[in-house]
């Protein structure tokens, strides 16, 4: 098994004494056959994001306030008859204040940091 110093030294020797130095990437045309696509300007990025997400089978809702966001999450829990919800340990989700209304619905809320 190689000693670390010997290993590195062998490589150092090769890089310092090697006669060949590559110069630049070959001058071979590397343009794909299709023309570059025009970049469309996205007027409403959140709307576009939701559209793409839904096209992939995801679900989303655009909300104006924290209250609306909280209500949406609670409604999802109700619809899904959730018993246990796990959420990330981040400030924004703490501030959302979903734990209490979900608790009132009988949904146990577990925070990631507390999971064993």
């Amino acid at each position, binding site marked *: *098994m*190689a000693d*670390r110093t010997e*290993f*590195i*030294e*062998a*490589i*150092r020797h*090769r*890089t310092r*004494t*090697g*006669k*060949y*130095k*590559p110069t*630049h*990437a*070959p001058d*071979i*045309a*590397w*343009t*794909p*056959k*299709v*023309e*570059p*696509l025009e970049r469309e300007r996205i007027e409403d990025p959140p709307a576009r994001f939701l559209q793409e997400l839904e096209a992939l089978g995801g679900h989303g809702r655009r909300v104006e306030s924290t209250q609306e966001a909280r209500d949406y999450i609670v409604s999802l829990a109700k619809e899904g008859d959730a018993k246990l919800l796990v959420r990330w340990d981040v400030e924004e989700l703490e501030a959302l204040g979903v734990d209490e209304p979900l608790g009132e619905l009988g949904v146990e809320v577990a925070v*990631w*940091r507390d*999971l064993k």
Partner: protein
Amino acid sequence: MALATEKFVTGRNAVLGALPDAPELRERAYRVKQETMANLDRYLEQMASAVEARGGNVFFAEDGEAVVRYIGDLARRRGTKVITKSKSMATEEIELNRRLEEEYAGLNLEIVETDLGEWIAQLAGDTPSHIIGPILHMNRHQVADVLSGVAGEKLPPNVEQLTRFARGRLREKFLTADIGISGANFGVAETGTIVTVTNEGNGRLVTSVPPVHVVVMGIEKLIPKFSDLSVFVQLLARSATGQKLSVYTNFVTGPRGEGELDGAEEMHLILLDNGRSDLLGTPFEEALYCIRCGACLNVCPVYRQTGGHAYGSTYSGPIGAVITPLLKGDEEAKDLPHASSLCGACSEACPVGIPLHDLLLKLRNRQVDRGLASKAQQIAFKGFEKTMKSPALYNISTRAGRTAQKPLLKNGSVRPLPGPLSGWTGSRDLPPLAEKPFRQLWKEGI
């Protein structure tokens, strides 16, 4: 093979077409690799220090034997029973699985490949045929047969059902593994970060669920800075599968830190040489720039016809034809540099600018210099050299050719050529030598 590789090529062209600065990215990737190889000793030290600063262990392995020893001894110390592996060409190169099973037979190790294609190949007792798609040579009926053998019942050749079955089986292994072994698509020297790219999520489950994570990484995979990843991550997926980004791109920087909830408790980075450093400072150094995207395989007219197994080595296609003789020796891989039409499609496709067809020519030259060319070939080319250097000899030989071809002319073509050359005209028309050579026409004022 043709269908699958065509799909990769079409996808690649489309997503690269969407990048307005694709040629600049390629040039930049080349420069980063050039800089890395020129200072590989320094970046190896930096990488090792960064990993150790985060609590990882680093081992420098000269060859496959050293890797097998290290991992086998680790498995013994840890009382390991199950090892999960994400796809790693480096571990294929050194035949890690077979050697661990044979040389540490007493440990009764169960080593499970978790890349879906690699797992199916493993179950079938087969070897991968493509760097990115290990079982491109199998169809869903063949896959169903293999997985039915595992299931103990006939599974339908339905992709969704087969995937669901595989997922269930592999999930058990992920959760019970004692050691997870991964390769690395990139190693970032600045931060000690290992980057793995997958479409299945197995990379994440192998590197963070088992208590011990072992990385086997070729020394050439290093890049200097984290910011360099913005170049390579863009190029890798686009060149490999035509995706803008792989589904999962994982960054692992050391073992689990204090207060962190996931990640391996213990991490070992094995930096593998296995002949790579022999290429530094030689005309073959650029072969080390490879990011294992497989783009050259997908465009190679030879690979697309023969498939990967025909190369008889871990690495196939143009890059395989280049690095196999470099890592294993010319004698062991004499035919591979000749398995090419030198069309240059591989060099054009390479996202890092490796001049693959140039390197194939250099390998052929090297064989001749080392006396490995056959006697017949040596004689033929000596004769060719003599003739082409002498106007008188050239004139005599072309005049003789014009006379000799007369009995062989049929409908304006020479067919068939005599003896062993007849294979050449079996499916081609050979145009005849002109009645009057150009030199004569020129003298006559035409």
